[in-house]
């Protein structure tokens, strides 16, 4: 086992105390008190064309400074996805358009000196709509007589199967095929062929999306934004407003939760254009209703799974056919969909015949976008339910079936090469994979042998266990790039400048620990800044479980480069014959076999003030991109208690055993997993985005959309496997998403083990369980 001084240690987050004691830290805290307040007029119709729009009365409201309709903004098709470039999402959105495509779509932007004036003005805008027939059922979207995107400007930057006339945002067929799936299924001794449905989920970051803007002294547009990716935001704002990027700065203060919600750009478009039009600072702080109705949910999916196995329990055939609902706009439509395949198929790499295909359709509902789990969680429900269904048919323990067929260390899968981010992928071997350990250890922690499948504890209460396994990624190979700059200061401390974006995960702390380890100094010698397109180097941002692995390696490289430079300088000062004669420890450079030494503090002071012609600023940088994306793995086990009279389900314990390589900060890694598990449990059991028949979102506030509270789960138990990935910084893989994937199937499997009821449609409500129990009885 390796000995680390800074990483693999649990230290408090560098910003923790400040945040908990109310430091002015978030976008809404930092916006100018004089900022114009921006409010949006939003569509009351699921699909309509604006016939006329009148703003005269509204503009007479005292305090109103600016009202913008589609006539006042550039008509440039963009995607708000906020992902790599060229973008794999269709360019199907204008800042404002004369079509509105869901209830909550933007119709007009109003900016006023106060909130009341803006809200009053909104009510006075006169809009005449031609109401069109919406498409609300995603299974009826393809080829529907209603065409949601009739505009001629829609396009994709490379072929993604966009077919707007048929409401298809993208499709993926005839590509991910290995072996002969039909033949292998036919020859299988046991076959499962079932259809599963996963629903939309709200992100519910506690901080609503916020953006503020102002013009600085150089006449440049500054945007302070609750964004997960300042650089993509800058690029998209530039594109949408037809502005050179040199004229735009995007700064990210603290973020009050992201989960993917803030990967897409939202109100930045509005604050930017208001400030450009008026020359005044502006601010747009979404209401919770706007967050729910008008940002991005998780993609709803229909997943058909076919599994085939021989009589010895060897999985032979694995087929998935997916239909995904991207809502009104196509952000992340292709990539989320592809992750449904690329994070599930390789997990069962013993199968000889593989196929993954499907389409992503438009509907007149809230757009779907990036959300922790990102396709993998939807597919995990389907596949991990199907695995249990297969085990039941074969009459074997479902955990043993997983152990036998799951991917192991040193192995690979052809899927890595075939499937990447919207295109081809890159082959890779699992240099670290402790999934088998995770399964065995989790089984022990939940006491599977004693508790599987179930125990009747009273006349109407049954306790049972259920399991599921998952893999995710660590960034997108050779697409995600992160970088870091280190600057030595007098007094011997370092600024660490990173484009990576801490959205509450603790990445600022984790990256500081990595840089400190690499330089060889205590972490309190590091002061981190993230992230600002003017002052911090490029990073894709916080998504795709990339930060620890991709940005972490950049911080490590910068640290190692800084260490070399420090030793060069110390060798000069101490007149060492060879640089190898310098030993750097305890913040002091020592010349071997002598009593000569200089402290880091003294060296830094000399470099700033005393060394004459040798004075200099030490700066080191590191950039990182990797052909590898070593997957983190997890085995999830749940123990539940089902009330067979009411269908009510209580979660007694959720055990997660995770292989994320070296956990750089074990406490923070653990919270990532625990938080993910609870979001997954919420999605499994009660979180559900519901609409009326006219397409009005019914769950548009936190009274109607319930997220888990402290009382919803009795216990979470998270452990890490001892694991080390040679490609990661000090052996680390990423850990942001892996926790969320397993609860859906684990709970569904536990319900089956308790009652014999197989739930294939989420969420798993008491009603659905009770209906299932009653069906079995009759």
């Amino acid at each position, binding site marked *: 086992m390796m000995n680390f001084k800074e990483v693999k240690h649990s230290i408090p*987050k560098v910003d923790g105390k400040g945040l908990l*004691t109310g430091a002015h830290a978030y976008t809404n805290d930092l916006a100018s008190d004089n900022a114009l307040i921006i409010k949006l007029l939003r569509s009351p119709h699921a699909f309509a064309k604006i016939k006329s729009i009148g703003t005269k009365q509204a503009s007479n409201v005292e305090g109103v400074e600016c009202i913008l309709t589609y006539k006042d903004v550039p008509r440039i098709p963009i995607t708000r996805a906020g992902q790599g470039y060229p973008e794999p999402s269709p360019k199907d959105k204008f800042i404002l358009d004369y079509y509105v495509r869901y209830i909550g779509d933007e119709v007009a932007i109003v900016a006023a000196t106060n909130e009341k004036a803006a809200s009053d003005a909104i009510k006075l805008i006169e809009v005449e709509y031609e109401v069109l027939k919406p498409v609300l059922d995603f299974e009826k979207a393809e080829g529907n007589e209603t065409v949601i995107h009739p505009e001629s400007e829609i396009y994709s930057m490379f072929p993604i199967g966009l077919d707007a006339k048929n409401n298809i945002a993208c499709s993926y067929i005839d590509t991910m095929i290995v072996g002969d799936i039909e033949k292998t299924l036919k020859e299988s001794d046991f076959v499962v062929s079932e259809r599963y449905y996963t629903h939309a989920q709200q992100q519910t970051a506690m901080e609503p999306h916020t953006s503020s803007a102002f013009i600085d002294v150089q006449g440049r547009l500054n945007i302070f934004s609750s964004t997960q990716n300042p650089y993509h935001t800058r690029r998209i704002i530039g594109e949408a407003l037809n502005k050179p990027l040199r004229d735009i700065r995007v700064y990210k203060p603290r973020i009050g939760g992201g989960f993917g919600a803030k990967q897409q750009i939202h109100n930045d478009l509005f604050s930017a254009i208001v400030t450009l039009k008026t020359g005044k600072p502006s601010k747009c702080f979404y209401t919770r209703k706007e967050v729910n109705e008008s940002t991005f949910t998780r993609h709803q999916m229909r997943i058909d799974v076919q599994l085939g196995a021989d009589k010895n329990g060897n999985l032979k055939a694995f087929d998935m056919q997916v239909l995904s609902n991207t809502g009104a706009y196509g952000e992340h439509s292709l990539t989320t969909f592809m992750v449904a395949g690329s994070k599930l198929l390789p997990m069962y790499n013993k199968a000889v015949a593989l196929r993954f295909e499907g389409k992503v359709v438009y509907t007149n509902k809230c757009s779907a976008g990036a959300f922790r789990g990102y396709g993998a969680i939807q597919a995990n429900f389907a596949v991990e339910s199907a695995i249990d269904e297969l085990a039941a048919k074969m009459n074997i323990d479902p955990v043993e079936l997983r152990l036998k067929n799951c991917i192991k260390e040193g192995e690979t899968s052809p899927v890595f090469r075939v499937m990447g981010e919207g295109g081809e992928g890159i082959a890779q071997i699992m240099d670290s994979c402790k999934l088998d350990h995770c399964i065995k250890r989790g089984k022990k922690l939940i006491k599977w042998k004693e508790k599987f499948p179930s125990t009747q504890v009273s006349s109407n209460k049954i306790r049972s266990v259920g399991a599921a396994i998952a893999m995710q990624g660590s960034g997108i190979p050779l697409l995600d790039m992160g970088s870091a700059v280190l600057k030595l200061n007098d007094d011997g401390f370092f600024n660490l400048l990173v484009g990576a974006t801490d959205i509450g995960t603790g990445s600022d702390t984790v990256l500081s620990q990595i840089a400190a380890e690499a330089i060889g100094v205590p972490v309190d010698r590091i002061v981190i800044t993230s992230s600002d397109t003017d002052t911090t180097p490029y990073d894709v941002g916080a998504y795709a479980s990339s930060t620890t692995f991709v940005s972490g390696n950049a911080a490590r490289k910068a640290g190692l480069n800084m260490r070399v430079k420090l030793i060069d300088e110390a060798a000069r000062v101490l007149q060492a014959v060879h640089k190898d004669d310098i030993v750097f420890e305890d913040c002091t450079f020592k010349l071997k076999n002598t009593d000569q030494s200089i402290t880091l503090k003294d060296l830094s002071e000399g470099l700033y003030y005393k060394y004459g012609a040798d004075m200099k600023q030490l700066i080191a940088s590191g950039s990182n991109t990797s052909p590898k994306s070593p997957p983190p793995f997890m085995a999830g086990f749940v123990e539940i208690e089902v009330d067979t009279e009411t269908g009510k389900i209580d979660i007694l314990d959720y055990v997660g055993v995770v292989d994320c390589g070296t956990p750089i900060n074990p406490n923070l890694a653990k919270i990532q997993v625990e938080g993910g*598990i609870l*979001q997954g449990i919420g999605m499994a059991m009660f979180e559900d985005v519901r609409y009326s028949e006219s397409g009005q979102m019914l769950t548009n506030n936190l009274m109607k959309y319930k997220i888990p509270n402290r009382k919803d789960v009795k216990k979470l138990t998270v452990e890490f496997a001892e694991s080390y990935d040679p490609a990661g910084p000090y052996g680390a893989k990423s850990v942001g998403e892996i926790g969320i994937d397993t609860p859906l199937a684990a709970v569904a499997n536990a319900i089956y083990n308790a009652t014999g009821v197989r739930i294939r449609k989420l969420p798993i409500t008491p009603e659905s369980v009770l209906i299932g129990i009653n069906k079995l009885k009759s």
Partner: protein
Amino acid sequence: MKLKLSINQQFYNTHIDGDESLLDVLRNLGFKSVKKGCDTGACGVCSILINGEPTLSCQFLAARAEGKKITTVEGLGAKADKIVKAIINEGADQCGYCGPSLVLTIYAMKKELKDPTVDKIKHFLAGNLCRCSGYEGQLRGIKKYMGVK
């Protein structure tokens, strides 16, 4: 209307609209620890103490607050230290948006719960939602702070 508020043991004179929430007024006065999260009194991030009682400031008319003692986390000063430590030592602060209100509510809970148990703690804090942490890490810290095994 004119309003005189006692916040963290200091008086503030301000002008407000009759229908303004205490949340908006406190933020306008510079108490940015008081967060806005949901508009419906469901998330708890706007929690403050009024006469020592945890209260949702988004659901409380500012006009009604005159004559009452308002405490925000800024006013706890060093009294917040042990609570803050209990949370950050577990890494359970995460995005921090629910943090100040949680610290305040824990402070009030410590005074109120004479015989704390895990169930009582969870019940007391049920209105303080957190989407990041999964609550378990916060509970580990809070148990230590409350002296519950």
